[in-house]
């Protein structure tokens, strides 16, 4: 049983998610802003926090900063209506282990939560597209070649995600196991979070509507 805490400032959305999640998931609590979220996470110690990106009091990134900054091992899955590259890259670099948009189906969300609970990463097609775009647009020399570029295999996996393939389909396509697909995605996540390439942030900002 995966214990989940829902952080979102829309009450209707919280109850909607609660109703959609399958039996394998127990919702242990809800929070509606940064303050209550930080308190509820400390109190309930959930396996996964479903985190809204835009919220009063600093948004999801502030929750990530305060909770992960205090050394907590709680895992976060960002759930947002926003498609802005800045938001997506922002929460991932803030420490979230995945990013899905709110129009995701209940079954897909349940899958994503399970995956994050197991320590894997969850990439939506759009996030995969952003990552490919961000790592492709590299003109400046990288500082750490290991962190600053994607391997051929990681690129393949991301492209398949962007094309709308499920992990199982990717595994079949590339003749690898689902576990290996998950490993590749987690490795991309790590690069995304740790690479201090300034282009990543710059790229995300440049994508913003001026």
């Amino acid at each position, binding site marked *: 049983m995966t214990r989940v805490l829902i952080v979102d400032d829309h009450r209707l959305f919280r109850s909607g998610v609660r109703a959609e999640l399958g039996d394998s998931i127990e919702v242990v609590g809800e929070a509606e802003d940064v303050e209550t979220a930080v308190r509820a996470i400390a109190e309930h110690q959930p396996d996964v926090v479903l985190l809204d990106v835009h919220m009063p009091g600093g948004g999801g990134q502030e929750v990530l900063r305060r909770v992960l900054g205090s050394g907590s091992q709680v895992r976060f899955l960002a759930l947002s209506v926003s*498609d*802005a590259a800045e938001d997506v890259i922002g929460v991932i670099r803030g420490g979230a282990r995945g990013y899905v948009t709110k*129009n995701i189906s209940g079954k897909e969300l349940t899958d994503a939560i399970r995956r994050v609970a197991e320590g894997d990463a969850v990439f939506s*097609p759009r996030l995969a*597209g952003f990552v490919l775009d961000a790592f492709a647009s590299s003109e400046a020399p990288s500082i750490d070649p290991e962190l600053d570029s994607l391997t051929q295999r990681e690129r393949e996996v991301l*492209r398949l995600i*962007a*094309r*709308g393939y499920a992990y199982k389909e990717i595994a079949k396509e590339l003749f690898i196991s689902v576990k290996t697909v998950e490993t590749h995605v987690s490795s991309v996540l790590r690069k995304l979070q740790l690479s201090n390439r300034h282009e990543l942030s710059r790229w995300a900002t440049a994508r913003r509507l001026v």
Partner: protein
Amino acid sequence: MADQKTLAEQSGDRPYRRMMRPQEGRLLGGVAQGLATQLKLDPVVIRLMFVLLTVVVQGAGAVAYAVLWMVTPRQPYEGPPPQRDWSQLAAFSAIGMALFAFGWLTGASQGGIGMLPFAMGGIGALILWQQADPERRKTWVSGASLSMRKNRVRTLLGIVLVVIGGAGFLAAEGELPQIRDSLMFTVVVVGGLAVIAAPWLAGLWKELQLERRERIRQEERAEVAAMVHDSVLHTLTLIQRVAHDPREVSRLARSQERELRNWLYQPAQDADATLAAAVRRIAAEEEDAHGVPIEVVCVGDIDLDPAGKLGATLKASRQAMVNAAKYSESPSISVYAEVEGEEVTIFVKDRGKGFDLEAVPLDRMGIRESIIGRMERHGGAARIRTEPGEGTEVMLTMKVEKA
């Protein structure tokens, strides 16, 4: 005794503040500072006034200072007396010396009582200058006109003094033929006038800027309001009307969502200029036409080529989307467009029922002609992967030379 007590009480209650000599920040005795507090002026002005009076009117300033020092009580201060700012005191002394030297050199200080207008004009200008100094008056943002209104008395005083200076100039011109004296008065008058006009001009400029910013903000607000009104409210009304038809409701909601998203997150793009924008537009149109959500992910971008290779690729991709939306029965369609160097690839994938490619009759134009044939004619390639029950994916590749 009783009478005295009432007197004391009365004096304690009266609205006038008694002038005191503060210990903190004083340069000599704190007289100038006390006077400044009393008159709500800057102490610098008062100090310069004393210096000016001392130099120009044969020590009158110094005498006045000494008298005030004697009659004004010291403001109570806790702790050890604070240090004087010697550098400032030196600066004022230097100004006095300079003025004296200037007067001596030009012969103006021999003018005696005739120099009084000069001093008055100077002091008037000083008072106005203090009002005009924008650095010192951070609160003075709302425009100079307001500040002028607020400090009407001081403004008036400044103007009167400048006018007296000006009158003195006329008198001096009659009495003293020396052109340098009249020049000096001219300088004072012109300076005074400039000082009077400066805050007004500065305020005008600031108001203009403020107005401009406000107008931009209002235009933005109007744009948002128009967006909400024209599309969001409109869609909500439509949704209520077709509430009985879930398919139509979701189509409307979806198209509105897409419109808002584009408006919020997508930079304004010309759909006729670049590939990514064109793919997004085609997907939006087909989504609207068929009511099936189409998720678009674009990586990289390229300008559309004049030769029409990309145009053909886009048409083929549209056909693939139409097929998926019409026949696959898939709940959603994924479109992925990638530009890598000179190679453009577009994937259109559904999770629908799929079909047997071999079994498609030859006369079905959709796949053979509109997709495969079109791509090959323009030097590209199309691949279709499908199996009954496995969904369909159409892959379009095209090589173009980058402009």
